[in-house]
């Protein structure tokens, strides 16, 4: 069972939950089943440009379709942007 951890702003949008367990086969599938998937992906289904995703501490922005291992920890992080 992998787990997806959300930043505070997305956790509020997800009813206060900051972690979601998943058995999704890929990172893209795991993110797509989140209740905040529309905030993570743009209307074209692409990861929003300033959303970063890490799997077990490694940048996975370009690895969305790679298999997601059992026990993996996924972190969704807003890029440092804005003011």
């Amino acid at each position, binding site marked *: 069972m992998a787990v997806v951890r959300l930043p*505070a*702003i*997305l956790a*509020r*949008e997800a009813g206060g939950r900051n972690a979601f367990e998943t058995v999704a086969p890929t990172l893209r599938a795991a993110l797509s089943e989140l209740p*905040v998937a*529309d*905030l*993570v992906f*743009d*209307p074209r289904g692409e990861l*929003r440009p*300033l*959303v970063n995703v890490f799997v077990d501490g490694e940048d996975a922005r370009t690895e969305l379709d790679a298999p997601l291992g059992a026990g993996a920890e996924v972190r969704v992080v*807003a*890029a440092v*942007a*804005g003011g």
Partner: protein
Amino acid sequence: MARAVLVGTKKGLFFVRDGAVEGPELPGWSVNHAVRDPRSGTIYAATNHVVFGNTVHRSADDGSTWERAEPIELDGLELGETWHVEPGRADEPERLYLGAVPGVLLRSDDGGRTWQSVRGLTDHPTRERWQPGFGGMCCHSIQLDPDDDARMYVAISAAGTFRTDDGGETWAPMNRNVAADFHPEVYPEVGQCVHKLLLHPARPERLWQQNHCGVYRSDDRGETWNRLDGNGLPSAFGFPIALHPHDPDVAYVVPEDGDRRLTSDGRLGVYRTTDGGASWQLHADGLPERAWSVVLREGMAWDEQGPVLGTQAGSVWSLEQGRWHELARDLPPILSVELA
């Protein structure tokens, strides 16, 4: 319920009531506009986030909990910032309108859960001549004619004012005599940079607009416009305009130096007309005399108790018995105020 000022800021939504500041709600979201629907009491907020996109939130419990709209999809266009939520008519309790980038009007018939593009405006034949202003090509003003269920107006920067007489099926440009000094043709059919458009509820044929290029009034539903600056205003440029709820001759504007985007004469100057715009007088007792903080397009509102404004420096001011009083200060930059 006591009067509440809904204050949309770059860092969430605040409530100012009974001398106290509550919030922020929706922390992290930039709230271009928030309004309480007088039909249901639900609060709607046009919310935008630099990372997570653009949407609308609603709260049926006075801001304690919020729901986000379903993803808003535009056929062939990409949604940008959401700018203004306008509740529909009393006999259509679930209908609301949303103005957004890129120059689009959306309609909801389920209380703001889902939104659909009003195609007559999205597919307008003049769209290729519209241009984005600094805030994007934003549809920021939505006004419903209280006497005619089929008539409404929108204003888009920089496309101009448009009117529908058939419930949104077709839209006619309403920009005659309105200047576009930045345009090769000074009086084009479309392309004007309206900053805020309001209809007077007691005289629905009367419209006012603060434009990039002047203050204007129309007494014939937007068919023709009369320019009203140059008679007491220090500048033709500004963003907000506020109308007295009953007297159609009374309006307030906050001029800016158009070249520098700063307050005119280096003061927070609110100007009032009581004669339909024939003359304007500074009406700023209580406001700081040295200030460079401006008021944005949604930054003024007016109810039975008088006008309220919010500044980019995070202050909320209320006019009471002829003098402005500071209701709140040191909030994040204020994008909108509404009264509820």
